[in-house]
């Protein structure tokens, strides 16, 4: 249990660190270049780990819808927009707005059952949660 909390926590810290590091690297070599370099090294590392653990099948991509396979390409735009946001409004505002939009979209997808997701009950608590998050950003902007 404690280990799980630790992993989840470090994972979150690393997501933010990644954004900040990308922003730092972009400053020196350009944003698209930074996105290219960091995802290239990440790709090589993930490939090595995959070859080592063999927990699945890379060939399984034939069974996946092309739309879903293309999801990885979003990484380019995600890094570009996140870095630009961090450089304009700082990390706290960037991560806050990013998370709100992320949960809003997840909320909609799950509520309507898009992309083959089982429609799950999304109700008042989720809406209240989102309103609270937006309220938090407004407080920061006071």
């Amino acid at each position: 249990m404690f280990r799980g909390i630790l992993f989840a926590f470090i994972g979150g810290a690393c997501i933010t660190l990644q954004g900040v590091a990308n922003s730092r690297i972009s400053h020196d070599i350009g944003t698209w270049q930074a996105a290219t370099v960091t995802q290239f090294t990440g790709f090589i590392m993930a490939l090595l780990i995959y070859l080592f653990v063999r927990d699945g099948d890379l060939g399984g991509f034939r069974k996946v819808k092309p739309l879903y396979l293309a999801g990885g390409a979003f990484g380019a735009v995600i890094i570009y927009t996140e870095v630009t946001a961090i450089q304009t409004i700082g990390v706290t505002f960037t991560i806050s707005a990013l998370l709100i939009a992320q949960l809003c979209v997840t909320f909609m997808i799950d509520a309507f059952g898009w992309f083959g997701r089982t429609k799950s009950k999304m109700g008042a608590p989720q809406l209240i949660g989102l309103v609270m998050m937006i309220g938090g950003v407004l407080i920061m902007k006071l």
Partner: protein
Amino acid sequence: MALGLLLAAFAGAMVALQTIFNNRTDVHMGSWATTTWVLGMGFLASLVCSLIFEGGRTFNLQHMQPWYWFSGLIGVGVVICLVLGVKILGPTFSVSITLTAQLGFALLFDSMGWLGLEKVPMNWKQLAGVAVIIGGIYVFKFGGKKKQEEVQQPSSALKKSLQQ
């Protein structure tokens, strides 16, 4: 300010879509093959954008510091931590903690001005704002959903091996 918020929100929407698409891929390929695939696609897309928007400057990397080459490993660390977190705690609890840590560290980075960030001294407005946002996350994640959700999101390899 508005433009920055809009860009960040756009990134967040894409993250949400990507997460769901990756889950779909994960079912057929397992988590490391998926991670490899996703980063490979991201790399190709970034390279293409870089060639379109920066042209020859794409390969002009003389300002690279050695650690830049290793920053991509952070992303791999993220995958390991998130997969293990979800495996041990289930998605609802695990994701809530991850989001909390994301925000907490964002505040810390801004207030310390680490890695060349413009230093934004921490003040009560930011602290209160972040606290309310985190409260919102927990209401969103735990509100009226209980256990039923945990069965829905497959945790890839583990679940696959259980089914076989």
